[in-house]
C-alpha cells in the first residue's frame, strides 16, 4: 500500500499555475487518506472566490499525479470551501473536462490558459536567473549574446538555471548548450538592443507573481489559522 508521504511527494511538483509555486509548499493540501489502493486528497485555497479555472487545473493536476503512482488504482480529489467546489469536484473526478463542468459558462478547455501562465513562469524564472547574472557584472546586452553553455555557474546560479531550463523544457523551447540564454515567451532569441526592455518586463512579471503569492499566502493563513505556507526565496 502506498503511504501518505509518497502521495505528498507525487503532488509536490503540482504548481499553482498563476503563482508558479508548489501547492504543497503553499499549504493548499489539507489531508491525504489512503485506503488500500484508493487515495483521497483534500485541497483548500486562499479565498472562496479564487478563479475557478486555476482552481480546476490544480485539482485535475493533483488527481493525475496521484493516479500516476504504481500502487494507486483510484483517486478522489476534493476542493473544499470554494464557490464552485461541487462543479470542480464532480467534473475532475468523473473526468468530464472543464467545459462540460461549466456548460453555460465556458467555451473550451484550459490549455490556452495554462500555456499563457507557463510563459509567464518562463519570464519570471528568466528574470530571477538574470538578476543573479547582473550581480556578476553582466549587462542585459551581454546576456543577449550568451548561449546556455556560456552562462556562468555557481551556488545560486545553478538553482536558478535549473528552474529556468525546466520552464523552457515544458514549453518545448531549446535547452541545448548552444541555444541562446535570453528568449521571449515563444522561444525567440532576444536582440542585444532589446534586452534591457525585455528584462524590465520580465522583472514586472516576476514581481507580480511574487506579490500575488505573498497576498495569497497571507489570506490563506488568515482564513485557516493552522496554515503554514512557505515560499521560494524572495527577490524583493
Amino acid at each position, binding site marked *: 500500500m502506498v503511504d501518505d508521504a509518497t502521495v505528498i511527494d507525487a503532488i509536490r511538483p503540482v504548481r499553482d499555475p*498563476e503563482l508558479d509555486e508548489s501547492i504543497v509548499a503553499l499549504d493548499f493540501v489539507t489531508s491525504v487518506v489512503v485506503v488500500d489502493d484508493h487515495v483521497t486528497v483534500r485541497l483548500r485555497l486562499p*479565498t*472562496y*472566490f*479564487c*478563479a*475557478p*479555472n486555476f482552481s480546476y487545473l490544480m485539482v485535475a493536476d493533483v488527481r493525475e499525479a496521484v493516479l500516476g503512482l504504481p500502487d494507486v488504482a483510484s483517486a478522489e480529489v476534493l476542493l473544499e470551501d470554494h*464557490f464552485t467546489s461541487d462543479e470542480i469536484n464532480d467534473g475532475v473526478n468523473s473526468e468530464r473536462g*472543464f*467545459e462540460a463542468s*461549466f456548460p*453555460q*459558462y*465556458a*467555451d*473550451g*478547455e*484550459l490549455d*490556452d*490558459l495554462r500555456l*499563457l501562465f507557463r510563459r509567464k513562469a518562463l519570464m519570471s524564472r528568466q528574470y530571477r536567473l538574470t538578476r543573479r547574472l547582473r550581480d556578476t557584472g553582466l549587462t542585459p546586452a551581454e546576456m543577449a549574446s550568451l548561449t546556455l553553455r556560456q552562462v556562468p555557474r555557481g551556488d545560486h546560479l545553478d538553482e536558478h538555471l535549473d528552474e529556468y531550463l525546466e520552464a523552457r523544457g515544458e514549453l518545448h523551447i531549446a535547452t541545448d548548450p548552444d541555444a541562446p540564454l535570453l528568449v521571449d515567451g515563444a522561444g525567440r532569441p532576444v536582440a542585444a538592443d532589446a534586452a534591457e526592455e525585455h528584462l*524590465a*518586463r520580465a*522583472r*514586472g*512579471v516576476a*514581481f*507580480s507573481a511574487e*506579490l*500575488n503569492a*505573498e*497576498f495569497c499566502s*497571507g*489570506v490563506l*493563513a*488568515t*482564513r485557516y489559522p493552522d496554515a503554514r505556507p512557505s515560499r521560494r526565496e524572495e527577490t*524583493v
Partner: protein
Amino acid sequence: MYEKDGEKYYIVDGHVHFWDGSPENQLNKYGKGFINCFYDYHQNLSPEEYVWPREKFEKYSEETMMKDLFEDGYVDKAIFQPTYLTDFYVDGFNTTAKNAALADKHPGKFIANGAFDPRDGDKGLAKLEQDAETYGLKGVKLYTAEWRGDSRGYKLDDPWCMKFLEKCEELGIKNIHIHKGPTIWPLNKDAFNVDDVDHVASDFTGLNFIVEHVGLPRLEDFCWIGTQEPNVYGGLAVAMPFIHSRPRYFAKIVGELCYWLGDDRLTFASDYAIWHPKWLVEKFVDLQMPEDMVSELGEITNDMKRNILGLNAARLYDIEVPEEFRVPAEPEAAMAANA
C-alpha cells in the same frame, strides 16, 4: 488634509464604500462568501489595532464612517464606488442611491459615482441617462465579474459595453473605474486580463480609465498597457495596505508604477471599510524608497506623494484644491504659461 514636517497634503480617497454585508442582506451563500473574503483581506493586512469585530465589518454606521474618514483619516474628499452585487445581496451591497443619500447629507465631503451594466441593454442606457441627471455623475464604477442571472461577467470591448461608453462620453461622465474579478465569460479565459482596457482606452480617448487595484493580480500587464495609453490611470486600493505588513513590496509596487506610468497617473485609495485611511496616509507620507531599489526604480519625493494622495484625483474630478496644497509648476512650464 495631512501635515508632517511642514509639508501639507490634500487627501482624496478615491475608493470608499458604505456597504451592507450583514446576514439580513445576504441573498445566498455567495453573499456570505463575498463579505467573508473582504473580512479576511481586512484582518490579514490591517495593523492589529485597526481590526474590527466581524459584525461591525459586515455593517457599520454612518457615524463610524464619517469619523473614520473625515475626523481621524485626514480625508478631504472621498469618492464612492458603488458595488451592486444584486445577485448576492437583497438590497445590493452598496448602491449609487444609498451612497448619494449620504453624500447629500454631508455636502462637500463625497463624490458619488454611478455604475452601469452593459447586459441591461437599452433599459440600462436610459437608466444611466437618468442617473447622470439625478446625481450629476462624473464617474462610473464597473465590476466586470458581476453575476447577472446566468451570466458570469462581461468584457469592456463587448459591443453593448462600447455603447454604454459612448453614452458616458455624451453625458460628460469622463471617469471610468474598472474593477476586475475572478469570473467572466468565458470562464476558461483569464478573468483578470486587462487587454480590454487597452482596447477601449484607444477607442475612447476622451475618457479616463482608472483601473482599480492597479490591475492586481495582473500588475505587470497593467503597467504595460499604461505605457501605451495616456488615458489609463491606476487606483491604489488593495495595493496600499502592503505598506504596513510588507513595506518593501509596497515600495516596489509604487516604484514599478512610477517607472511605467508616472506619479501623475496614480490615485490613493483606502477601499474603506476594508482598510482605514488614517494609517495608510501616515505610512505613505513616511515612505522612503529602500536604498537598494533606488537605482532601478528611482526615489519617491514629497511632490510625487502629493500627486498620488490627492492632486491627481482632484484633476480627474475637477476638485478645487487650495493653493497651499498644490505642487508648484516646473520653472519652464511656469515660464511657458506666462509667455
